């Protein structure tokens, strides 16, 4: 009976497509479903018939996440359930990269079609910088996944919503999602449509490649990276280089050849944005 009651209250998002992965999200928390639907609304529409269903349902006082046929652990903490679900979604997206693009861990913002690619390993301030730049007027083109064309090094914006952690939430407090105390205690999933620059979806001409490194309280210092060092970083941040082999190497090399490549060390978001915007010109 409780399952039937829960089903009556379940809301589901439309199907979205991230890279080649079609998905929906459902929950009996209407506000959460509406928020995530808004966050993902900038992605292309997915095929409902092929979409993998993700969701979180209340089971008594606990929450149970699922990703397709895989059920996550029941937990009393809704944010744990949602974090597991979003991690599962990231895994599925990365697995669909295949051999059509070089998929790199990073994000994109753009002025028109002039793109800034930001790439770094985890917890280096990538999401904060991308969101800050979008708040300053660049179009938001995604966080976590950058699709690099195998022919020519162009990139495709995949506007997966930004995920903000730690200090970023204080700096970008106006983006706090609804019910953050329940669902988003460690990481905010925010709607990029709320950012001043809007959202871009599709091909971007990369002109600047930034490798950020968050350093608490440090002033923003930007310095050129050799293209060889930038290429090495891009290769190390790629998800599917090993499947692509030398084709992936050539794609990454084409990307860095098109870009001014810089390293940014900073603990100051506004100064970081100033520095990157100056490089973009």
């Amino acid at each position, binding site marked *: 009976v409780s399952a039937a009651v829960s089903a009556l209250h379940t809301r589901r998002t439309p199907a979205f497509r991230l890279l080649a992965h079609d998905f929906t999200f459902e929950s009996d928390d209407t506000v959460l479903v509406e928020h995530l639907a808004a966050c993902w609304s900038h992605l292309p529409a997915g095929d409902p018939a092929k979409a993998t269903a993700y969701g979180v349902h209340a089971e008594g006082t606990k929450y149970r996440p699922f990703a397709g046929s895989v059920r996550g652990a029941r937990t009393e903490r809704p944010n744990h359930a949602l974090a*597991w679900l979003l991690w599962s979604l990231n*895994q599925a997206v990365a697995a669909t990269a295949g051999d059509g693009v070089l998929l790199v861990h990073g994000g994109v913002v753009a002025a028109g079609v002039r793109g800034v690619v930001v790439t770094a390993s985890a917890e280096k301030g990538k999401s904060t910088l991308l969101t800050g730049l979008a708040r300053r007027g660049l179009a938001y083109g995604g966080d976590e996944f950058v699709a690099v064309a195998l022919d020519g090094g162009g990139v495709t914006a995949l506007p997966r919503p930004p995920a903000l952690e730690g200090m970023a939430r204080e700096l970008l407090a106006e983006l706090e999602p609804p019910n953050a105390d329940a669902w988003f205690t460690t990481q905010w999933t925010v709607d990029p449509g709320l950012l001043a620059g809007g959202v871009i979806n599709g091909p971007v001409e990369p002109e600047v490649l930034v490798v950020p490194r968050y350093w608490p309280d440090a002033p923003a210092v930007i310095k050129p990276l050799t293209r060889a060092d930038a290429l090495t970083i891009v290769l190390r941040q790629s998800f599917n280089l*090993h499947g692509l*082999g*030398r084709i*992936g*190497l*050539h794609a990454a090399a084409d990307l860095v050849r098109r870009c001014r490549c810089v390293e940014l060390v900073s603990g100051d978001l506004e100064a970081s944005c100033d520095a990157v915007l100056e490089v973009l010109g």
Partner: protein
Amino acid sequence: MIPADIAGEFRPSLRASVAAEEVDGDVVLYDESTRSVHVLNGTAAAIASCFDGAGTIRDIAGEVAEAFGQPLDDVLAAVLDVARTLGSASLLDGVEGEVAPADPDDEPPPPAWLADPPSR
């Protein structure tokens, strides 16, 4: 052969699994068999570009010394150094380096943030 045994009569050549990209004078190598990435600066890249399996280390050093007007002994030492470094990285034919080939059936592990479920 181990890298330390590389000497003047060795004919170095990059393994067929090694792909190279030149960017701004530096060269980035990617070895498909070991899935490793290496950067050579301009000098090392210029020397490595002569590693075609035809000439010996001594031949290559002689040509470079003549072309750039450098003492042969200095250039020979530099060419040996590059060859032993590339050999150690398992990038040369016939040299047993320190980087083991990857199992082609093994998927490389995803980055930690994607491999490990969230714990918080």
